[in-house]
Each structure stands twice: as structure tokens, then as C-alpha cells.
């Protein structure tokens, strides 16, 4: 039973991550490969605030979100203003690699490759979320709020302006709006939810180290939303389902462990190539990823 609950918790963390990247990539059209940097910054900030300063989970999460927006969202918005298309994507790869270098090397703060052990479980008014089932309820709360938020947000006029940023930036300028502002809004919301996912991941595993937040992780999250489809809620959720449940399904085919990891990656990559070729807007997507 715990096995199923653990899988469901990981699944929900990926659903939050995919939904948040979907806002930036699907709605606003900023194809980016730095989701793991946002997610990792969130995880590290929450852990450091909880372990070294001793804050409560929710306070730590609140401060982590604010710091993460000032750090990452401002840098990303700045480069989104200067760079277009491929060069923006390259800029996000650069941000991701710089982030990894910093957490790997800034040992005074992040303990480098040793990682941060002993991250306490979240606590709310005397209730400690220490068993998998209780933690599952906590993640379910966050996932449900994320889904509801994005469901509501997709209908707001603000979201239409974000879509306009994606479709025709010049037209938006003609209407007297500032594209940079809408990009900042979109990236900030992405950062908020990525931070939540990171905080949940850190407290769930109680140990984090830099290898969980590499470029490969960013590629995987992007794969999730491209396979599922961008620009709506169904896409990222179904993508995350495929991504998390496929390896568990492979486990029952009795594939030896030595080749399972590699075989899994090959299957993902093949799915990605075929999806991009045959159904460029993913399984449930409304919009194609465009240049």
C-alpha cells in the first residue's frame, strides 16, 4: 500500500511541475529548459530555511517563493526580453547549468555534493505529516489547488493576454500592453508552483542533493508536457501519468535492473520523437510548440 501511495505522491509532484511549466511554455510560448533550476531552488531554499534556520514548513515555503521569484523569475524575464526563440531556450539551458554549478560548489550554503539530510516533515497546528498517507493528503491538497488554479486562470482575461504574447508580440505592443510585464507574470506563477513542488519533494524524501536537479530533469519535465500536450490542463496531467506510471509498468515485465533505466530513457525519447513528428501538439494539446 505504501508503495502505491509513494508513487502517487511522486506523480502529484510531477503534475504540479508539468502544470507550472505548461503556463510558461504552453500559454506564453517560452520554450524553456530550466524547470529543474526553479524546482531545485525551491527545494534547496525550503530545506535550508527549515534545517538551518528552523522555520515551519509553510513559513519556509512562503519565503522560498519570494526569494525564488526575485532570483530566478527576474533573471529569466530579463533574458526573455533580450532573446528570442532558440536563443531564449539556450539561455535557459545556461541558467540551468549555472544553477547546478552553484548548488554543487557553494558548499557553505548547500553542502555541495553531500546534499542536505534530515529535512523535517511539514507540520501544521500540531499535525505532523510524517506517514505516507498523511503526506499524500498534503500533496493532494496542493495538487488539487494547482489544478483548480490553472483551470480558473485559463479563463481569466490575463491569460488571454499571455496567449497573445505567445501568438503575436508585436500586436500586443500595438494594443499598448507591455509583453515584458506579461512574461514576468507568467514566469512568476511558474516559479511559485515549481517552488511548491520542490518543497514537497524535499520534505517527502527528507534528503536532497544536486543530482536531482540536473539538465536531464528539465528535459524530462519538458518531455512530459510535450507528450501530453500544452495549453490546457489535460495535457500535462496525462503526460505526468505516462511518465511516472510507465517505469512502474516496466517493473512488472521483469526487465533486469541493469538495463531498465536505459531502456526507459530510450522509450521516452522514442515517444518524444514520434509525438513531435506525428502529433506536434501532443496527446491532448490545443497548441503546437512553435518557433
Amino acid at each position: 500500500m505504501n508503495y502505491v501511495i509513494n508513487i502517487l505522491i511522486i506523480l502529484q509532484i510531477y503534475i504540479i511541475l508539468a502544470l507550472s511549466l505548461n503556463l510558461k511554455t504552453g500559454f506564453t510560448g517560452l520554450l524553456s529548459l530550466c524547470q529543474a533550476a526553479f524546482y531545485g531552488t525551491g527545494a534547496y531554499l525550503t530545506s535550508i530555511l527549515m534545517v538551518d534556520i528552523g522555520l515551519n514548513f509553510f513559513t519556509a515555503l512562503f519565503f522560498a517563493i519570494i526569494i525564488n521569484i526575485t532570483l530566478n523569475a527576474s533573471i529569466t524575464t530579463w533574458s526573455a526580453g533580450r532573446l528570442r526563440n532558440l536563443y531564449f531556450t539556450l539561455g535557459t539551458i545556461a541558467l540551468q547549468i549555472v544553477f547546478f554549478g552553484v548548488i554543487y560548489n557553494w558548499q557553505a550554503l548547500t553542502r555541495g555534493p553531500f546534499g542536505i539530510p534530515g529535512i523535517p516533515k511539514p507540520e501544521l497546528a500540531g499535525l505532523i505529516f510524517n506517514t505516507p498517507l498523511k503526506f499524500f493528503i498534503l500533496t493532494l491538497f496542493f495538487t488539487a489547488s494547482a489544478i483548480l488554479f490553472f483551470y480558473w486562470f485559463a479563463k481569466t482575461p490575463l491569460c488571454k493576454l499571455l496567449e497573445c504574447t505567445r501568438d503575436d508580440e508585436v500586436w500586443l505592443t500595438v494594443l499598448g500592453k507591455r509583453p515584458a510585464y506579461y512574461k514576468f507574470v507568467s514566469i512568476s506563477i511558474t516559479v511559485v508552483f515549481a517552488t511548491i513542488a520542490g518543497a514537497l519533494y524535499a520534505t517527502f524524501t527528507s534528503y536532497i542533493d544536486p543530482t536531482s536537479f540536473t539538465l536531464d530533469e528539465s528535459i524530462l519535465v519538458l518531455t512530459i508536457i510535450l507528450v501530453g500536450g500544452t495549453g490546457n490542463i489535460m495535457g500535462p496531467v496525462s503526460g505526468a501519468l505516462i511518465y511516472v506510471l510507465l517505469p512502474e509498468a516496466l517493473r512488472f515485465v521483469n526487465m533486469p535492473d541493469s538495463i531498465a533505466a536505459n531502456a526507459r530513457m530510450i522509450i521516452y525519447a522514442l515517444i518524444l520523437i514520434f509525438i513531435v513528428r506525428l502529433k506536434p501538439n501532443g496527446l491532448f494539446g490545443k497548441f503546437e510548440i512553435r518557433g
Partner: protein
Amino acid sequence: MIIQILINSLINGLLLALVALGFHIIFSATKIFHIAHGGIFVAGVYFFLWANPFVGLAYGIILTIVFAFLLGVIIEWLVYKPLFNKSGSENIALISSLGVYVIIINIIALLFGNETKILDNSIRKSLTLGEIIITKPQLWQFSFSLPLIALFLMFIKVTRYGLKIRAISDNPLLARVMGINTQRIRYIVFGIGSVMSVSAALLKGFDTGIDPYSGMAITLSAAVVVIIGGTDSLYGTIFASIMLAIIQNFTEFFLSAQWRDTVTFTILILVMLWRTEGILQFRLRVDEK
């Protein structure tokens, strides 16, 4: 000591320039951000490792070069050509390329394992000139990469195919109107680019060895160099490769090896934000196209 670092950087820079020139013609002729270049880089060395016991050194190298050319052509044929015909965007090509990279790397890891492989395990003599030590693999690297770069530049600047490649880089549609077989040129570009990458990989494999995951770092370095040097200038790419190698080596010497990628990409971000068109190029790139 400084001179020693400079000489090492020069040799590393020439190897990086080989990879970067391959990346450069692919990027400028097809506008594809070819991350699978790193996969080809690694695949070449592993093919050589597999072929070497059967056919010996010389034939092994020739076969590897042929293999690299074919691999590049096959990737273009299977993956990029259909996207190009559907006029998919640059970003779709980038994502497919990531997919191809992941597939190549994982197939290699399945077949050969994840550990580092060195092509030549024997104890190597080195050349000592005063305080400077140059190892034998480094001598090979220097004496093979310089002529290769010269040959490549001659191919692009002098021959008819080079002219066609430059025409396609400049304006693919116009080149097509003028009767150039764009598809064939794209095959050639991918083949030549892959050969450049694999020759650098072989030279590196004889020195420090290679593992399946080392391709990504070098492709990203090559991409950084192409962007920094300017996507229109081959000389800019060579110049930037050597500069980047110098910076990387000094970082490794004075800070630590772990800071290398961080410094590389910080430079990339700074260059992209400060001189978007690259340091040796004089045209705005932001709204190109």
C-alpha cells in the same frame, strides 16, 4: 606554469574548434540546434573501440570516419528531413534532437556500460622542453587537428560544395530557386559535421578517455563557442574556441574543475545579453528571420 596552461588550452581549444566547426555548419546551414552532435561524438569512439580489434588501427579510423558520416546522414534522413518537409519550427527540431541524443547515449550505455573507456592504456612518453611538458597524445592532437581545421576551411571557402553550403546558410529558399539540390547539401552538411565531431572525439579518446555522458558537455561548449563567435563567422568560432579553452583551463587551475561549466555558461549569458550578435559579428540577431 602559465605557459604550460596556455599550451594545454591551445590544444584543447583546437579540439573544441573541431567539434564547434561541425556544429557551426549544421547550425548555419539548417538552423537546427543539433544536440545529437554530442551523441555522434561519443558513438564514434565506441564504434572505434568495437571495430579496432577486428581491423586494426588504420582501417579502424577510416571505418569510424565512414560510420560518422553515415550516422549524420541517417539522423538527417530519419529525423530532421520529415520535420523540414513539414516546415516544423526550430524548436521542434531542437526537441527531436534532444530525443535522438538520449537514444544514442542510452543505446551506448546498454551495449558498453557506463564507465569511462580509454582507447590507449600504454604508458606514454612525453616531450620536455625546459619547464613545459607535452604528452604524446597532445602532440597527435595538435598535429592532426590543425590540418583538419585547415582542410575544413578550404572545403567551405574554396570548393563548389562549400559555396553551395554557404548559399544555403545565407538564404535556403533563394538557393533552391537557383537550382541547388538543398536536400543533398543538407546530407553533406550533416555528414561533414559529424566527421569533424568524431575526429575530435577520437583524438580526445586517445588522451583522456570517454564515457557515454561526456558528449553533452562538449556539445554545449561547442554551441556556446558558436554563439559567442557569431553564427556567420567560422574564424570567430575558432577564435572563440581557443579563448574559451583558455578561460576553462584557468578556471580549473585557479578555482576547481567543478566551476568550469558554470563559468562557461555565465560567459554565454553575458555575451548573449551584451553582444547578442556575437563578438566577431556585426548584425543584430534578436529579430533575425
